[in-house]
């Protein structure tokens, strides 16, 4: 099985500062890979490189086997991105936002009933889709973005600190949705500093520090306490 997401010696420097140092990783369909690390560890840089929002200084990033730099538009067909600050058009309703992005993603209009069914499956409160997004909480905006990902039928999800700023219930709902999508074969790359969420959701965890991927762990081989200890060891040396 070819990896959905792949980084080969992926490097990014900003001037003399190396934000990402020769990263190698693979995320297969159905797998949830959590990038764990403090601020500045290179997690967001990795996601930005996969999105081709920034140019790599060295190495390559592949989505579905295609280089993101040489195939900027084709590679984006397969991915859905959920940023830390989920921003939508404030003056449009949730449904209008979903419809806009879904149409852009698919290159053609998506049936309304289908879009509504996505909104139901992300558990957006009934009736909320016709309210302006400016009245939404972060959790609700995130649900819209997940519905967009569903409408896009994305094969890979790129999540940047998705649970920061969510209350525990919303955070839990979010995790369930992500796991459901992974269960359906979506590859997920999630940047987080939430150890608990990483252990709960992740199939594998990559610990990052100062632009380097220090260790990759299979979550089912370690308990919460082990994970915290290993993580802290990496942060201290």
């Amino acid at each position, binding site marked *: 099985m070819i990896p959905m997401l792949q980084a080969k010696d992926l490097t990014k420097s900003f001037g003399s500062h190396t934000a990402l140092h020769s990263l190698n990783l693979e995320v297969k369909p159905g797998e949830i890979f959590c990038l764990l690390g403090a601020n500045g560890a290179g997690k967001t840089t990795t996601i930005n490189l996969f*999105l081709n929002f920034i140019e790599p200084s060295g190495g390559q990033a592949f989505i579905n086997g295609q280089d993101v730099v040489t195939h900027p538009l084709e590679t984006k067909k397969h991915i859905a*991105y959920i940023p830390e600050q989920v921003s939508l058009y404030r003056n*449009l309703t949730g449904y*209008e936002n979903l419809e806009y992005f879904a149409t852009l993603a698919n290159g053609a209009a998506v049936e309304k009933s289908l879009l509504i069914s996505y909104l139901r499956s992300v558990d957006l409160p009934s009736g909320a889709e016709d309210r302006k997004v400016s009245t939404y909480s972060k959790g609700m905006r995130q649900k819209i973005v997940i519905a967009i990902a569903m409408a896009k039928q994305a094969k890979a999800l790129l999540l940047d600190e998705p649970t920061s700023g969510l209350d525990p219930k919303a955070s839990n709902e979010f995790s369930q949705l992500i796991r459901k999508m992974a269960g359906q074969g979506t590859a997920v790359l999630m940047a987080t500093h939430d150890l608990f969420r990483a252990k709960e959701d992740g199939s594998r965890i990559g610990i990052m520090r100062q632009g380097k991927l220090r260790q990759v762990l299979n979550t089912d081989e370690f308990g919460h306490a082990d994970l915290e200890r290993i993580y802290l060891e990496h942060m201290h040396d």
Partner: protein
Amino acid sequence: MILHIARKEMLEMRRDGRFQIASAIVLTLLCVSLAIGWQQYMAISRQHELARAETRNQWLTQGQKNPHSAAHYGVYAFKPRSPLSLVDRGADNYTGVAVWLEAHKQNEFKYKPARDANTLARFGDLTASSVMQLLIPLLIILMSFSAFAGEREQGTLRLLLSMGVAKDKLALGKALGVAGGLGVLLVPAALIGSAALILASETGSFAANLPRLSWMATSYVMYFAAFIGISLAVSAVAKSARLALVCLLGFWIFNGLAAPRLFSDLSRAVYRTPSSFAFSQRMEAELKTGFDEVEFKKSVLARYKVSKLEDLPLNYAGLSLKAGEDHGNEVFDKLYAELWDIFEAQNRLQQQGGIVAPLMAIRSVSMGLSGTDFAQFRDFSVTAEKYRRAFIDVMNTDIANAPKTEAPHLGDKNLWAKVPAFEYTSPSVGTVLSQQAWSLGLLSIWALAASIAAGWAATQRLKAE
């Protein structure tokens, strides 16, 4: 896809209170200016029509008198106004639209509203053209400065670009969105304007004005397209929406306020016009010299091989008047051509301003198509002057050929009727277009370059970060 983007842009605009207020103001101003233009056009063309009939009637019914007195009595000629002048009054307020044609003199034009206006007039007339040349670009800037920069600040740009939308399509969609928003405003205004034009036109003449009207519409569309392109390009490149707005407003001020002032001052500095007083002094001096009555008398006697004026086969008075006219005409031709060439040189220099400010180009085109620019004023003046010479010549020929009797020679209505009524047809649209070729060319370059700049900025410079 592109239409989908455009539709969303328009939906956002429609929900934005600021846009609603701004466009309501602009639409109101546009309609008011059209109404004022229409009312003025109707009033003035009615006055012209009456005055034309009156001056002709006075001429024909002036009773018996010496033909030279009749030549002094003179007639008025009125520059016909195109119905399109209700959109753009152009230079008419300064050049005047009526001239008195009489013996011996090529008069200056009369009815110059600018002469009676107070300093408030310096702010410009409220005409549809000034609204379209100044306020619509401002509205375009307000509609599009945040197109990219705002989305980047809001954070929606990252999500948008992650969808895999081609940036050129995105830019085109946004441009169409602004154009659509503008269309919502301009289409009703254009309908009102066309209705006003149809009402203002005599039967059949609306169709005759259609080529001018469609060229005018095309020119304004190019002008607006240039602003949409510039605004989107700046929005894609600028670090923040605020910075984009500041840059665009700076350009707007330069284009609409600074450049016209700059180029009019520059053109006056480079091509100096004599003062009105100096001009008439020189005219008087030149008219006095160069024509020697004694010499002329000798040459006439020699030409007809007679020794006394009484032996001439013609009346000497008529010959002398003709010769005097001929001399005057030479002077007029020389001096007016000099003066008008200066004006035209000034105009040409101002049209060069279109290179840096598209307003200078659209202003020239708009005036030209409305028939209110200097070139068409000059064309009318030349035609009126030709008519004056022809009709004075009819009078002088009559005097020269009058039977030699003791009784004073009088002209009557048969003589007056020999002078046809003054008719003037405005230059064809082809003539106007060739006069405006430079400005039209600049306008299309602006529209094209701005579109390319927007496409380039969106595809090469638009960053999610």
